[in-house]
């Protein structure tokens, strides 16, 4: 099995043997894919949904969908892009279910750290950034998460969102503007 993980010259791992084996029902290959993608999917869903329990559930749902639908995977897509697109759809499903509650309610992510006085400047900036991200609509939050946190290329974001690359860029520009405004508002202590 270890022979499947061939390292390519650009440092990326060739996942295709694992994907094919998992699609054929190999439990070891499925477990390998789960171990590999759990951190990526969890961090993506957590940053989009800002709630740890929701992120855990979304991660599980996403990876189960991925593993049970491997025969539908089109290898013209990058596998990670396909996984993220399924994670995004899962988050949107959760978002819709919660819509009548309040997507904007304070979340539990920031509740575990030290008090504000104990925070370092770097931590404070991160806290304010997350609070600012909470303020902007998910439509804009998601492109910032994909570009700045997940370091996805413009083309990959366009694939996930199924929109032209120019639209991706416009959305990122607008999102940054909204985030700067929200960041300033957080610093000013606006509610």
């Amino acid at each position, binding site marked *: 099995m270890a022979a499947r993980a061939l390292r390519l010259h650009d440092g990326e791992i060739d996942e295709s043997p694992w994907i094919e084996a998992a699609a054929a029902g190999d439990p070891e290959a*499925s*477990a390998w894919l*789960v*171990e590999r993608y*759990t*951190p990526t999917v*969890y*961090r993506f869903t*957590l*940053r989009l949904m800002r709630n*740890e329990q929701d992120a*855990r559930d979304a*991660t*599980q749902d996403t*990876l*189960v969908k991925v*593993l*049970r639908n491997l025969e539908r995977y089109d290898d013209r897509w990058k596998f990670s892009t396909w996984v993220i697109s399924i994670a*995004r*759809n899962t988050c*949107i*499903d959760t*978002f819709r279910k919660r819509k009548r509650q309040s997507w904007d309610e304070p979340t539990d*992510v920031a509740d575990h750290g030290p008090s504000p006085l104990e925070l370092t400047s*770097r*931590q404070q*900036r*991160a806290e304010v*950034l*997350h609070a600012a991200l909470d303020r902007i*609509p*998910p*439509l804009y939050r*998601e492109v*910032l998460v994909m570009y*700045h*946190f997940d370091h996805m*290329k*413009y*083309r990959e974001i366009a694939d996930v*969102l*199924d929109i032209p*690359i*120019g639209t*991706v*860029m*416009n959305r990122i*520009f607008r999102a*940054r503007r909204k*985030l*700067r405004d929200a*960041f300033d508002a957080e610093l000013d202590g606006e509610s």
Partner: protein
Amino acid sequence: MSADTWIHLPDALVEDFVEGRLSDLDAVRVATHADDCAMCRNRLAAAEPLTSLFASCDEPDVPADLAARVIAALDAPPPAERPVAPGIAAGLAVAAIAVLVLLGSPGELVAGGQIVWQALGSTLRAVELPVALVTPVWMAAAMATFAAAAVTARRLEGGPRQASWR
């Protein structure tokens, strides 16, 4: 400006891109170049003021048991196919009954079918549909129609789609 002439993006272009001063066409060219050029992608990221802000965020810890939980969920039997919503099912049933009432009995359909066949010309005029054959065909067609409607309803409910936040 031609993307073909760039080995790497000029500094002024990087700045214009980050500030959103380029036309849509030029911005797409820059983005496309950056997608394929790690060095320029890093330069664009470094020029964007928000990048350092995002970099100040630590990677969230991943729950230690999460992968095991996913693997356990994979081992569980998949959920049963979601049934068609009761409202849609009731609507389909009413529609099927209405079709039966409006179109009449199989015998009437046979008569109508024969008229149609006769109108098709001399080649088909000689063809007569035996009732014994037409009745199961009629039943099969009705069932196929019903199944197609059910599948369509299922897709309308939650089939593959590009999800939207709106």
